[in-house]
């Protein structure tokens, strides 16, 4: 058995997973998340890593391979690096073994990744350079509306007459939202409108990547059940051949995937050393 760590350095959150097992099977010993916004990322990482180790009851020497994903360059003590879609695909399959695609929605980008049963990436699509409708955007809007992030989902689900938000630009959309409030549109209807427009974009990615079957949603926005519901609605309306499912550990999918691939590389390297 190998103990490995995966660190997913996102643009808003740092996620850490500790894995105990090999490249095929094993278990996640612990996961840890830490906000990065407005903090000195390089300073946060070591502390967070220590915290994760502590909660798994491990010491630094117990970990045999440290893999990163996301902005891995910021982790000076890493051994290897995997690109985020690689990691999310593997992590996604670990969380929901029957999934054949991942929808990863984080603070800035949305990605649809089609994969096989082993977590091998087949195709993918990513949102473009323009940050229209990202996690950051939901965060800003929710602050503006005075709604806590974990209230966003439930509120959105209580909408009765969602107001469509057509603006492609997140900034202008923010003003649109202000405009809506001033027109007396209720907060649930505004949130749902935003969720629907984001969901439309994300579903488009899924379609473009030709995903089908079970799609596991990963990244921070998997926790937003309003968005998940909006995606499901669109999927149903358009009778699309997939079903999107979040998982309680979704936000950690990247870190988990990186840790598992870390185990794989560790084995490869160990075998190489043994041969030598």
């Amino acid at each position, binding site marked *: 058995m190998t103990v490995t760590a995966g660190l997913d350095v996102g643009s808003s959150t740092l996620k850490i997973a500790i894995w105990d097992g090999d490249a095929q099977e094993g278990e996640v010993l612990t996961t840890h998340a830490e906000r990065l916004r407005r903090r000195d990322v390089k300073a946060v990482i070591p502390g967070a890593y220590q915290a994760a180790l502590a909660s798994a009851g491990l010491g630094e020497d117990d970990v045999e391979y440290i893999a990163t994903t996301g902005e891995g360059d910021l982790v000076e003590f890493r051994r290897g690096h995997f690109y985020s879609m*690689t990691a999310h695909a593997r992590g996604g399959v670990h969380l929901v073994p029957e999934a054949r695609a991942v929808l990863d929605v984080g603070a800035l980008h949305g990605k649809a990744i089609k994969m096989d049963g082993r977590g*091998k990436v087949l195709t993918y699509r990513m949102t473009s350079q323009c940050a229209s409708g990202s996690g950051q955007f939901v965060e800003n809007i929710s602050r503006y509306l005075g709604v806590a992030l974990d209230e966003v989902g439930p509120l959105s689900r209580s909408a009765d007459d969602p107001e469509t938000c057509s603006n492609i630009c997140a900034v202008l959309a923010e003003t649109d939202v202000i405009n809506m409030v001033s027109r007396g549109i209720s907060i649930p209807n505004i949130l749902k409108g935003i969720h629907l427009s984001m969901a439309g974009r994300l579903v488009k990615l899924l379609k473009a990547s030709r995903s089908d079957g079970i799609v596991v949603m990963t990244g921070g926005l998997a926790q937003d059940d309003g968005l998940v519901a909006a995606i499901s609605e669109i999927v149903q309306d358009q009778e699309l051949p997939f079903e999107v499912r979040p998982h309680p550990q979704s936000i950690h999918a990247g870190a988990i995937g990186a840790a598992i691939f870390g185990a794989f590389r560790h084995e490869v390297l160990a075998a190489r050393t043994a041969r030598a």
Partner: protein
Amino acid sequence: MSRVADIVTTCEELYEDLEFSACRAWKEEAPGRHAIGYLPMWVPREIIHAAGMLPVGILGGGDKLEIIRGDAFFQSYICHLPRSVIELVLKGNLDFLDGCLFPSICDIVRNLSGMWQLLRPDTYVRYVDVPQNFEPDRGGRFFRTELRKLIDDLGGIAGRPVTDDALKHSIELYDENRRLIRELYDRRSAVPWLVPTSEVYLVQRAGMVLPVEAHNDLVREYLAAAEMDDRPERDNSRVVVSGAFCEQPPLDLIRTLERAGCYVVDDDFMLVNRWFAQDVARPGDPVDALVTAFLEQGIANPARYEPHAGTKGQDLIECVRRRDADGIIFAAPSFCDPALLERPMLQKAVEAAGIPSTAFKYSENTGQLQPIREQAGTFSDSVKLWSSV
């Protein structure tokens, strides 16, 4: 510094020099010299050369040029290239040009020829309309008169007619250039760690501003030097880049692809260097040689009508096979209609052939390379992690 590093530094200096000092210097070396600019894709550089002039490739402004007035001429949904060209025109960086040729590539370049006419009435402007009908007595006949007109015009500017002999000589020089560039591409495909794409790119770019004779020497030298270098081979994937034939990605983007684990083993940068897969020179009238080469051997690209159904993408697939590539990266400039309209047809074809691909858009001043790195990296990860499984 190694020989290769020297050559590459020289090329990089030429690449970054938006003042085109090398071209200006060439003009000043002798009185009465002329320089003629041309936009990406293909123009008959042989004719410019035969007129004793320097053909200068205008490939945009790259990511170092600040666009101040250029944006005043183009809406946000138009690709980036024309605004940097206009910026260069208005800043005077192109004032050494005595004329400019606009290849028939898309509506943007086409309209840019008219804008140039209005903004630089002092210069010679020619829209090089190439035939989309490849029958010798229709397209060929038309093209011959077009080329003859260009020959007459340039002869007029030079103050002496362009002779057939001169043209023949120029064609030979450019044939040599094309051979060398082909060799460069072959070497890169064989040993991509010794001949990295960022260098191949820069060496090609130098050909946009150097006289062909000098460029031939440069490519030869680079080829020899690169073989001598000792650089480690990496566990990278092999990809073909398609769609970047006009507006150029920033050099950092090309480097990002390499850093993310992709060896580019073929591409469509600067097609003007590789438009013809064989020599153009043949006995007889040199204009006929150009016309025939154009009708019969022009490289498949989105600006060229494909007269036969069912053949879209075949060249690309063939290229992947020949280069033993793992897949294709479709990289097109944002808002580039020719590349983006072509893409679905190509994707369909390569998918049918079982070739994996990925796609993204860029502009010449793309600063956000992170999404591109992620996509290219994931592509190479999947080759690296799964090739043995």
